């Protein structure tokens, strides 16, 4: 019915194929039950219609073993489906290490995408076929939801935090992108296209037009401009936690807990530093809420991520 893979059983992502198999299986089980129940009702309705000559002697009013059977059988089947589905579901939450990271910023009513080299697009997302892509998403206003039916993926995009989603496109093509969480007047027009291309073609596309600095370089500029470097540089007199190789590491907090320094943690630490205080440091950092916008944050986080490889960034791109 649809060449783009929105079709029922022709997903265009690796995870999507697994989902389709599960979908078909659940469809099989439910159809079997539905047909069974409908068949029984029809059969009884005809055989035991008023005035028919069917034998009606000794009708059972209850039978414990029947009740137990039709409780235990669905229970067993449901548990099986649950386990299967949960295994698949957990894969949605484990993006491969090698995934290509792309930043998505949602706002009423458009999708803004930025690649690590600074290439930006609106309402379009170009990805290579055969390579996992992880989207790091946030919203500037209300809740949106990033939905690509052909990939069988969907993730709400929230203001004030990062959510992520990953997929691995298995064939080239143009696929619908929908906003699936109602977000106001033009919700239905907050749509776009995901363009999956062969890797070489994608590389050419990506290189074709970064009109600005790559993200990490821009992040470094902000790191300087906003005054982060004043305290977080190793040479600083202020006692502040170093940021090199911080990303993805375990951080010990002053309340005794530990947390992984992921995007959301870093974001919170920049905007609302008092939320989590690193053990051994005084809560002296001012919050940057209202001073940095989402674009700045994306860039700043890209810099912090990159600062493990090249310690003090050179200012030239």
């Amino acid at each position, binding site marked *: 019915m649809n060449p783009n893979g929105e079709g029922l059983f022709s997903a265009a992502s690796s995870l999507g194929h697994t989902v389709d198999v599960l979908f078909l299986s659940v469809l099989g089980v439910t159809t079997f039950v539905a047909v069974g129940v409908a068949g029984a009702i029809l059969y009884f309705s005809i055989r035991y219609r008023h005035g028919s000559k069917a034998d009606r002697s000794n009708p059972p009013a209850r039978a414990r073993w029947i009740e137990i059977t039709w409780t235990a059988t669905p229970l067993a089947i449901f548990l099986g489906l649950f386990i299967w589905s949960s295994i698949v579901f957990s894969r949605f939450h484990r993006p491969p290490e090698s995934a290509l990271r792309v930043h998505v910023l949602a706002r009423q009513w458009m999708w803004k995408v930025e690649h690590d080299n600074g290439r930006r697009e609106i309402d379009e997302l170009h990805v290579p076929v055969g390579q996992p892509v992880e989207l790091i998403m946030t919203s500037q206003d209300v809740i949106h939801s990033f939905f690509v039916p052909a990939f069988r*993926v969907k993730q709400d995009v929230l203001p004030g935090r990062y959510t992520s989603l990953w997929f691995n496109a298995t064939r080239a093509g143009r696929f619908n992108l929908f906003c699936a969480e*109602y977000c106001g007047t033009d919700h239905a027009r907050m749509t776009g296209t995901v363009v999956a291309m062969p890797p070489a073609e994608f590389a050419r596309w990506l290189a074709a037009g970064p009109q600005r600095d790559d993200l990490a370089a821009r992040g470094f500029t902000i790191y300087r401009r906003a005054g982060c470097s004043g305290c977080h540089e190793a040479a600083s007199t202020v006692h502040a936690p170093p940021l090199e190789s911080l990303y993805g590491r375990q951080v010990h907090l002053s309340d005794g807990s530990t947390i992984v320094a992921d995007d959301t943690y870093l974001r919170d630490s920049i905007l609302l530093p008092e939320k989590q205080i690193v053990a051994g440091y005084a809560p002296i950092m001012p919050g940057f809420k209202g001073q940095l916008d989402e674009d700045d944050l994306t860039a700043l986080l890209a810099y912090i991520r990159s600062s493990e490889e090249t310690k003090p960034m050179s200012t030239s791109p």
Partner: protein
Amino acid sequence: MSSHPSRAFHENSYLHGGFTLWSWLTTRDHKRIALLYMISITGFFFLGGAAATIIRIELLTPQGDLVDAHTYNELFTAHGIIMVWFFLIPSIPNTLGNFLIPLMIGAREVAFPRLNLASWYIYTLGGLFVLATLLFGGVDTGWTFYTPFATLFSNSNVVLAIVGVFVVGFSSILTGLNFIVTVHRMRAPGMTWFKLPLFVWANYATSIILVLATPVLAMTLCLIAFERITRIGIFDPSLGGDPLLFQHFFWFYSHPAVYIMVLPAMGVASEIIPCFARNRIFGYRFMTYAILGIAIIGFLVWGHHMFVSGQSMYASVVFSLLSFLVAIPSAIKVFNWTATLYKGSILFASPMLYALGFVGLFTIGGLTGLFLAAAALDVHLTDTYFVIAHFHYIMVGGTVMAYLGGLHFWWPKIVGRMYPETWGRIAAVVIFVGFNLTFFPQYIAGAMGMPRRYHVYSPEYQLLNVFSSTGAGMLAIGYLLPLVYLVWAMFRGKHAPANPWQATGLEWQTASPPPKENFETIPENIPSPYDYRSRTRS
């Protein structure tokens, strides 16, 4: 019983004596209050239906050519708010429940008659707020009021709508409270718990949910309204809050609310099916356990609305498991209804057609719920038309079908006259076919990825939407038919005997319509429920 229907009708019937509007508006008779509710919810049903009609016409084409985007959003919001809170939740409990629970347990009244009337006035007040919302330009948040859209971004009458829903919530709470206490304290001597009709059990379980879940919604709505007015709050991330907290609170109410809507429908089916199969209900005790099981587990599954919301994966997995488990008692009920037909002597009168239609549609709705309970499939299906189709199969295919079945079944009792049987059967078939034509294509559209709440849509979904809109036209006609002939029957129908269906149940042991005080003498020797076998033999 040897009562003379005509004599009872003219002298002592609850409909007789006090024909003035005032006598109706100040009544404390649960039967009259039931009729007040029936009139109100019918009005709201057709209002919500009108919104749905415009929506379906708009969706005939992929472009937005009938109404603009904002109006469309207001239409589906109005449809949702009206149908959920002003029709479905009060539908069976407040009309049939109000009328029948005291009769079925052998009581002369509900426990708190004045509270019962107050509940109707509160409902009406809430309804006026919602009507005012519509008159002043509508509200466009969806019935779910998700924050921060509802608190900060929507430019519509959010607060007014919230006040309406808040107020009507108290009507639900008071009705639930009244039913719980009535069932506990007002049963006739000898009416033990396991002699109660399943309709009473179902409404009892519903009432517990109403009493425990509704206040959470009420407080949550207060917080939303306050946050919108003062720009201070706990839900909006820009104010330091957490929007997922709102979703947890909202669904903590709104998922049990699904069971508020469908449990009473199950109760109705459990009365009708044994009566027209002339058979004892199969597995009475298991049916009661299933009702309670649904009510209890129903409180623990709300997180399945939030699999893609950003909720932790582990929470999602637990909610997925519980959602599979809540399907078990529903399955038990379907199997028991089916088994009740076995070795019966089945009459296909209108109520039975509705009840069988209910079982079929509820089964499909329930089974498709399994897709949504499976978290891995829900990721793809949530917020698409698959979900729309699923909950309409439960709430419209299930609840509305059962409500209509119940209306036909008890219409002779309520108005003392018979409805025209042929028309009843025609309407049942038209509704069943129209319903499936409307909503089955939506499963397919949803599985293909068509998102809900879309004013314009991708052209590949058009064919399915045309089917759906055609079905909706048929469904609309189907719903108008009973409105016409049931009202006609109220004045012109054949006089009904006390027990036209030879049904068991105490409500059939009194005149049609019942006297003001329900029974001339409170029945003694309470029979075991659904004793259709011995009745047929004797």
